[in-house]
């Protein structure tokens, strides 16, 4: 079966806690780069929580916007990679072949969401942190571009399990780390090709919108608008 993986992010529920970022770091072998490097704007998070301010100081309100890779249907990053290190896989995701990447960083320049991150150094996991590395994923070397893959290792695992049990993937079989960990349940992941999945139902919501839609990238991540009014 052909899948159309998609993510819905309900901004009404997001509190900006950042649990998704931590979960993603743990799941995907993302290094912790330290204070100095972070000060140089080199955070390697695959999902980040943007914080904008609305209004002036006494009434200022923070607006949070979690931002993973949008997995664009017409991805600007794929077009410009000279070596096909980033490509559209059979599930319609923007996959990344780390050992093919030569590090031109053009994909990052062409990504309007700026969600791609670069390995500035070879990062080390001190003992015993190396014990917690996920064996399902490579540890990327220096000079390589990396990005959110909707936890492709979990998608693979779910496909394998389903195949072993001789069935189709059920809704809820695949949950990326960020969605699994989100305390208020703002992130929802699923297959749009399945007409009965929760995400298909949720994306009928009139609050839905996509980021920078005018650019024509057709992102797979759909946001549900924050509502204003009594009690909010």
């Amino acid at each position, binding site marked *: 079966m052909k899948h159309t993986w998609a993510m819905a992010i309900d901004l009404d529920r997001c509190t900006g806690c950042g649990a998704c970022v931590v979960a993603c770091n743990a799941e995907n072998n993302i290094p912790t780069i330290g204070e100095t490097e972070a000060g140089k704007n080199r955070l390697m998070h695959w999902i980040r929580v*943007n914080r904008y301010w609305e209004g002036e100081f006494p009434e200022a309100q923070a607006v949070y916007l979690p931002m993973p890779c949008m997995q664009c249907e017409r991805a600007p990053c794929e077009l410009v990679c*000279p070596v096909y290190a980033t490509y559209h896989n059979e599930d319609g995701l923007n996959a990344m072949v780390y050992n093919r*990447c030569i590090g031109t960083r053009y994909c990052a320049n*062409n990504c309007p969401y700026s969600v791609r991150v670069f390995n500035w150094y070879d990062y080390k996991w001190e003992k015993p942190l190396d014990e917690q590395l996920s064996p399902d994923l490579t540890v990327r070397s220096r000079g390589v571009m990396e990005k959110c893959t909707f936890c492709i290792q979990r998608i693979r695992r779910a496909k394998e399990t389903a195949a072993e049990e001789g069935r189709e993937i059920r809704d809820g079989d695949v949950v990326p780390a960020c969605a699994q960990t989100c305390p208020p349940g703002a992130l929802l992941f699923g297959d749009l090709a399945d007409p009965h999945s929760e995400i298909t139902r949720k994306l009928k919501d009139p609050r839905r919108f996509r980021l920078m839609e005018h650019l024509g990238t057709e992102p797979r991540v759909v946001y549900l608008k924050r509502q204003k009014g009594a009690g909010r």
Partner: protein
Amino acid sequence: MSAEAPRADDHHLARTDEAEMFERLSRSNLVTTWRWYLGVGVAGAVLLWGLIVFLYMAMVGMGVTGYNKPVFWGLYEASLVFWIGLSHSGTLISAILRLTHATWRAPVLRGAEAMTAFTLMVGGLIPIVHLGRNWRVYYALPYPSSRELWPNMRSPLMWDAMAITTYLLGSLTFLYVGMIPDLALLRDKSAGWRRKFYSALSLGFRGTHEQWRRYHVASTLFAILIIPIAVSVHSIVSWDFAMAKTPGWHSTIFAPYFVVGAIFSGIAGVVIVMAILRKAFRLESVLTPLHFDNLGKLLCTMTLLWGYFYFTEFLTVWYNRNPEEWEVFGSYGGHYLPLFLTMVICNFVIPFPMLCLKRVRRSISLILVPACSIVIGMYAERLLIVIPSLARRNDPFIWANYFPTWVEFSVMAGAAAMFVLLYMLFAKFFPIMAISDIKERLFHTTGRTIGGMTVESIAQVEGEGEAHA
């Protein structure tokens, strides 16, 4: 031989004393001063330092540069555009002047063509320097791999690599073919290993009528072919930017604008190189103020053209007020104001009024002021194209600024030193003046009076008309 001031009777020099003319023009090959050794030593040391720093960067990682999250490209890419831009004028000027039979062209040709070849070599290496994994650069080559992986021909970076390679091969051929009669001349005048060296390179050119005819046909053909390549190369370099979705880059004016900027900085580069050659190799009698005057006129035109293109680029952004682009251009007046002012002052405010004056154009020391300021201004312009667009991306949450570290400065100083070194070695071993063209000019031109003015006019080479027919 003496190094006297320009002589009034230069026209008769070829007829009266061919040996003296050869000695004068080949001073770079014949006399090696301590200054030359010093120059080569300094350039070699800086290049070595650049290489060491580059290796250090490759061993440790790109983290030692000033690059950060939204600004993934910076000084390296700006330098790439700058060097490729600088390469533009040499071959282009030479080709256009050959085709139009401009009589004053001869002494400018070789030096300008050599500049093109060496700036391209330097510029062509920078894409490799900027890679995160330089040791994997061969992935971008279309080599037969057992996995049947091919480079992505939709990527402007691939077009870029192909355009630069084509231009480099084209200019080297152009340079070499134009040099064959001079190499033959050097062969006849030299002894020892040099004689063997020049014999091999001159491909048995004996100066027969048939060889000359073929030489003229070949150089005309190359001149015709190289012009579209030169124009296309910088258009394609501009597409690295214009084809991206980045605000400030995604603009249709980029191709002509880059070509104009390239020719602009290239002519300034030619002026500087000519002035240095003139001083270093005592070519005062060959490279006369007339040449600088003519190059200055070209430069003045390009100043105006560049100014107009810059204005139109602003105009469209101002008129459409796309908020994303507006932020990029807004940063020109904010954080990037010093860079912007450097560009405008060095590219327009200083050179334009100066180049309008005949007195400036005809004085070698004075014309160096606008020429140097244009080179600086164009470097600032390249930085201004690359950096603010990335620093003010679509999402304001990740905005950040960029400043290069000592690593980038060292590697780029090494690149500049590489150019100087290559040029000095070339001047030592190859004829830096197009001797046969200068001779041809001396033989075939006569003063003709048109109206009240005496102009140099070239007589048709015998048999050339039939060859073209």
